[in-house]
């Protein structure tokens, strides 16, 4: 795995470091383009239908909304963040300045909101804090995000795939965490026939979890994502590919949209869309946990799909 990619600072709308990394990695290998929103697209080529594979480069973040007179920071969430999971987390700003999230509200746990939390950056007055951060600055959680592990998988696939049955495009998209935004202009540019989103998804095989998605359970093939039913023919292609090549897979149906697939499905001229996910325990916290086995399964599944199906 390309671990340095996970350590980059890339909150929504501030993904330049991750986009640079990807463009740099692909230099001399393929021609990349970066659109106005910041997403990177690469056209590998080949004959056949247009197939676009996409992984997002951003990660959820905290946007500073207020600095108080004692140097404490208030924030809003850029992306889906659970206030309970944020408490006591370390957060990191673009220039490596660190802080931690605390809560001092006298409330029941279930009533705690993001607006009850604050960040301590060890500044003791507004002046001191303003030397380190400004309102509108972003901070990420823990300083490492597995959100981008799917980008690593795509980069490895670009390296490894020599021939395919498709006209291949890869996209590394911005602003997924805040509402699947970066993918829209990409779809309008590429106009794919087939779209595959590669993303991480919460593994809930923990105490009091529903255990629908299991860590070490293999690549997750999404059947339904939010209000969208993903392409049944692609799902069955993936099922067959997994069976033929003994790739371990699990199936899932998401109540709320988790991947870019539904957005891509009906954008521009429309496409057949699928989503393959890697399970992550404690997603979007400082303690994200993954299994190499699932990463391998997702990568192998897609590789066989591209070259065989």
């Amino acid at each position, binding site marked *: 795995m390309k671990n340095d990619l996970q350590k980059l600072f890339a909150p*929504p709308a*501030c993904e330049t470091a991750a986009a640079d990394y990807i463009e740099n990695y692909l230099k001399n290998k393929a021609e990349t383009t970066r659109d106005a*929103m910041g997403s990177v697209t690469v056209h590998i080529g080949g004959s056949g239908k247009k197939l676009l594979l996409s992984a997002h480069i951003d990660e959820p973040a905290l946007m500073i909304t*207020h600095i108080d007179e004692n140097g404490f920071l208030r924030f*809003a969430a850029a992306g889906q963040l659970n206030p309970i999971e944020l408490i006591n987390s370390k957060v990191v700003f673009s220039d490596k300045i660190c802080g931690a999230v605390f809560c001092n509200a006298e409330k029941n746990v279930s009533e705690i909101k993001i607006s009850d939390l604050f960040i301590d950056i060890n500044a003791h007055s507004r002046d001191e804090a303003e030397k380190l951060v400004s309102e509108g600055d972003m901070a990420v959680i823990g300083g490492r995000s597995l959100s981008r592990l799917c980008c690593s998988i795509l980069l490895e696939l670009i390296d490894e795939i020599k021939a395919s049955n498709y006209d291949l495009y890869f996209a590394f998209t911005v*602003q997924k965490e805040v509402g699947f935004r970066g993918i829209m*202009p990409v779809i309008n540019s590429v106009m794919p026939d087939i779209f595959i989103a590669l993303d991480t998804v919460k593994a809930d095989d923990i105490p009091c979890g529903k255990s629908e998605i299991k860590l070490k359970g293999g690549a997750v093939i999404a059947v339904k994502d939010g209000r969208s039913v993903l392409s049944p023919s692609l799902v069955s292609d993936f099922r067959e590919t997994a069976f033929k090549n003994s790739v371990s897979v699990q199936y899932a149906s998401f109540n709320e949209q988790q991947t870019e697939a539904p957005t891509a499905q009906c954008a521009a001229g429309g496409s057949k869309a699928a989503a393959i996910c890697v399970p992550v325990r404690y997603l979007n916290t400082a303690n994200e946990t993954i299994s190499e086995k699932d990463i391998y399964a997702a990568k192998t599944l897609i590789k066989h799909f591209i070259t065989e199906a």
Partner: protein
Amino acid sequence: MLKKLTDAFSPSGYEDEIREIIINEITPFCDSIETDNMGNIIAFKKGKSSKKKFMADAHMDEVGFIVTGITEGGRLKFDEVGGIDDRILPGKRVIVGEKRVPGIIGINPVHLSYPEERNSVIKMRDMLIDIGVSTKKEAEMVAEKGDYICFDSEYKEFGDGFIKAKALDDRVGVAVLIDMLKTANPAYDFYAVFSVQEEIGCRGAAVAANIIKPDYALIVEGTICADSAFTPIHRRVTAAGNGAVFSVMERSSLANRDFLNFAKKLADENGIAYQIKRTGNGGNNAGRIQVAGKGCKTLAMAVPCRYLHSPACVISKKDFEAVRSLAILISERIDEI
């Protein structure tokens, strides 16, 4: 100018009156003006360079209501067009339909209400508009189902440089765009979009952006202002009098960082006051514009506006002036980003 703009009767989907005012005002200053199929005005002014396209957007619609029924007693049932808080409605003056019939939003008199009624919010569906007639037949002569309704509230300047009017969201933006067309010497080809139907889901701007395909888009808005003692300090999202507001993040978009930093730099260099919006809430046309076509770089800049979506929105002239001068500067120097 702002008086003429805020007095116009133009809820979402019924923007004819404001559209006519704007077109009459800007025609001498544009190279071309087009009204698209949805009703957006797209005004074009040639720039020093045609290398890139710069778009500015202000929505010209306002929140209002629509007549949904008439009672036997000649009162009007109604529903909202855009998001309006039920709590502010009782007793407010409105204007109904093409005949501009005056009306009052009425509720059960306090003398006859039960304590539990007084302690809860009365829902819009339990209010009726009184237009001063006594029978359904009389009411039907001046109003019908589907008629639009607007707040009845005149423009007034008060206190130390404050303005009160309805629809300041987003007629302040409209006024800024008109001034940009009149006075700016734009760096790139400039498209001023006066968009329709923002209040019911940012629909017009998405269409206009797909027609124009801009490289940069500046969204000029009236935004949430909470600066009274009711609000804890860290939740006072903007304050009237503190300058132009940059919306770094709202529900549907994030500011392009290069564009944001450029605007801050211009403001600093020219002594224009600005503030960062202290919330991720609220929404504006940027969300639809940035993902239209192949995407574009957006920045939303706003005048803080107290009591949004009410008959008495309040802004400070200072903030209006800050947004106006910064918007003109941005259009003239956008090529320096």
